């Protein structure tokens, strides 16, 4: 399929061919027992061409076809696009990078995966016989290759290992569901740490407590802090900026948030699931880039298209969800800068408030304006510095941009969420709670 780029060059076009390869093995446990072993293999090709008049064509397929047929598919589409004002980059010949491929993951077989599955199930059910455990383990290898119209080629591959555990405890009055995950690029996932998180959540949920509605301080766990980040990431998205959908579009360089809050993109972080030397349109990614520094809005995510529209350059933020898609601006790996004190201290000093670990309904409010209004899926009521129990039927609402201003403290301890966001515990005061 690479020959198509020779044809692109010969036809006086610019363009790139994006090739993805995926090999994945997974085991799925249902209620503590193995349900399914699954193998996935996929290779796909996405061809983007830019004509001399700037119009873009795109065609995607997962079957091999004649180069001319493939190119014609893209050219047919190019009749209709509006002209773009960016160029497909040249790929550097002098830079070198290493793949993040763990041979232990590649070699992992079903017996090893089942062993891990059985271990996790037995550890949880041994201590909590009343719960039901669903589990998913995925291990695999993914590679991406880019070829441009100069017929330069770049390739990068990484492995991944993901474990997701859902624990369900049903009584006649209540259904509790707890989710915990660990994802990483190599096999070094700390199972004990995952088990501890699950056990801690189960223990804290032993009793149900009521709380009254009102304004309270709230501690977001690393997973819970997505409530605050979700609208912010929407606003930082270069496409939303260009299209007039971002609250942040005219606020670059301004101090908008608490000085405690800094958010960085670190695209070369080893073994994260976002790590990559170049993005999906051939732009080199940055080792460190501040999006927000001490509360000041620095930069958003731009791909080539949105960057050219906004008169900013792309710094490696054009990613494609699959070979079937054109690039969209997003991030590779994110870090929220941690604070100085332990999460235990934040909790101990809380007179009365709520710990929010997960919510239901993220992004279903007016995200563009920063508004969130979600039910707390897993949350704990705190009184006199101690967790009293789990709360139910409680809603949390506010404006994420305001809440980021109202950050009172950020913990020292952090955790990788989905293997690509390193997040601390965040204390925000006050937030509105309906109960």
């Amino acid at each position: 399929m690479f020959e198509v780029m020779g044809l692109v060059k010969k036809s006086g076009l610019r363009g790139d061919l994006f090739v993805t390869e995926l090999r994945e093995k997974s085991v799925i446990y249902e209620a503590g027992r193995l349900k399914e072993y699954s193998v996935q293999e996929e290779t796909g090709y996405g061809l983007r061409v830019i004509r001399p008049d700037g119009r873009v064509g795109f065609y995607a397929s997962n079957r091999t076809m004649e180069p001319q047929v493939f190119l014609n598919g893209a050219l047919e589409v190019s009749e209709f696009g509006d002209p773009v004002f960016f160029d497909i980059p040249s790929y550097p010949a002098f830079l070198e990078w290493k793949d993040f491929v763990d041979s232990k993951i590649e070699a992992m077989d079903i017996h090893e995966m089942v062993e891990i599955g059985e271990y996790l199930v037995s550890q949880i059910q041994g201590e909590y016989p009343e719960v039901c455990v669903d589990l998913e383990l995925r291990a695999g290898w993914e590679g991406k290759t880019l070829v441009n119209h100069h017929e330069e080629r770049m390739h990068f591959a990484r492995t991944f290992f993901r474990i997701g555990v859902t624990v369900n405890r049903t009584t006649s009055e209540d259904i509790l569901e707890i989710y915990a995950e660990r994802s990483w690029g190599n096999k070094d996932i700390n199972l004990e740490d995952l088990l501890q998180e699950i056990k801690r959540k189960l223990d804290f949920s032993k009793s149900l407590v009521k709380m009254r509605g009102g304004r309270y301080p709230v501690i977001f766990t690393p997973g819970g802090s997505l409530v605050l980040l979700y609208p912010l990431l929407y606003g930082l998205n270069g496409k939303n900026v260009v299209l007039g959908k971002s609250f942040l579009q005219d606020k670059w360089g301004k101090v908008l948030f608490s000085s405690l809050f800094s958010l960085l993109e670190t695209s070369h972080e080893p073994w994260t699931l976002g790590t990559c030397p170049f993005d999906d349109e051939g732009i080199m990614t940055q080792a460190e880039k501040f999006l927000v520094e001490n509360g000041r809005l620095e930069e958003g995510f731009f791909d080539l298209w949105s960057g050219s529209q906004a008169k900013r350059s792309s710094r490696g933020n054009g990613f494609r969800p699959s070979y079937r898609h054109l690039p969209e601006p997003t991030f590779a790996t994110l870090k929220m800068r941690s604070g100085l004190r332990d999460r235990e201290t934040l909790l101990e000093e809380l007179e009365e408030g709520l710990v929010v670990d997960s919510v239901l309904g993220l992004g279903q409010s007016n995200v563009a304006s920063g508004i969130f209004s979600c039910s707390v899926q897993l949350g704990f009521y705190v009184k006199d510095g101690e967790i009293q129990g789990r709360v139910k039927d409680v809603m949390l609402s506010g404006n994420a941009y305001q809440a980021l201003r109202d950050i009172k403290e950020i913990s020292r301890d952090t955790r990788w969420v989905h293997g690509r966001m390193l997040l601390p515990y965040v204390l925000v005061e006050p937030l509105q709670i309906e109960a």
Partner: protein
Amino acid sequence: MKSQLLELVKIPQHGEYLEIRLERITSALIRLQNGLVEKVQSGVEEGGYVRVLHPKTSWWFNTFSGWNGVRERVEVALHSVSLLPAGGRGVTRAEPVEAAWKCEVKEDFRYLPLDTKVKLMQEYAQIMRESAPFLSHCSVEYRDEWREIYIANSDGSFLEMGKPDVSLTFVAVARKNDRLEVYRNGVAERGGFEVVRGQESLAQEVGRKAGALLEAPSFEGGMCDVVLDPVLAGVFIHEAFGHLSEADFITRNEKLQKMMLLGKPIASPLLNVFDDGSLEGLRGSSPYDDEGIPTRRTYLIRNGYLTGRLHSRETAYLMQEFPTGNARTVSYHFPPVVRMSNTAIEEGVIDREELFRDIDRGLYAVEYIGGNTALELFTFSAAYGYRIENGKIGEMVKDIVLSGNLFRTLMQIDAVASDFRWTQIGGCGKGEQMGLPTPTGSPHIRLRGVLVGGHKSV
């Protein structure tokens, strides 16, 4: 292909259940942003899966690109599945069926020049942009997709299905200073290009609604009586109740089974809910599900009693009930799991107006932005709403989120109107399988004493 696949499914000799799916997806996407053509994509994709259940072990599932090497994959699968640890699973077998079914469309979008599609979208974009002041952004997104599906299984069944799906989405963003309002609406159907023609007034309405939302105040939140329009009521029954009636949630959890015991009073006696994949012309319909089981109507709630649930072959086997034709997959990348098809609240007898009459202070919640559920907990957002004061519909309000406990809320329904209608836009996600078409239907319904999350201006 038919004879080859039918030959392959005869290979298993030890009681294994084997299922093969081959699929070709031809699709196009056109997206206009602020009148400019941002994206035109088209493509064709082929792939398939082989899955096997061994009576003594578990499932083996292999998904792959292309249609080659199916025989080898079947052989590998049959060998490998026997080596898996014991799982204690099984499937209900069915009578063999052979059927070829293709949805008829008026204007087959596969043979329509892209030019025709793009021009129509440009017209809509123009109309929307001129529909209201303060619009900072308008987008028009058109998608079409034709799936050719071939399924063969150990029952000796062979199915060939042709499923078109077409959708059009309008999004408008209105902006005044730092306040942004987004409104979206569209059409989606199992049909041809004719579906997206003649949508000029919808394009205009979307722009106007976004503009109107800028002026509307936020709803304050709190407990109140709520009337749901058919769109939102449909989402409510899908999210809050429908997912719990998918049997795979409860097959392995005895406590949940007790909670969802058939025959148990679960809702207000006014409530009747069904799922029906056999209805003609809806996006969730087809004569057979993805495991080759005929689709049918299943009553989930009748007169407030829990009367049924949705099954795949496997959940039916595990619970010793019958498959209902609800095993669906979004594509060959995933095995079929229990999903809703077309789910609805059956119409009642009273007029819509009656629902508002005896509410002193309440909320009329209209359309939706999104919804989510975690077993008994649910939450969903209305696109907008109106205050109800002294039985009358009043001022437009926004930022409305309804949430609650399923079992309590189902009991709080105290009126069901007679103005039933289907809503076909949107898709449902379960696990990794996102965007499955699951139409919902309902008339207006009324809920007493619901927790509504609003937004207090800061």
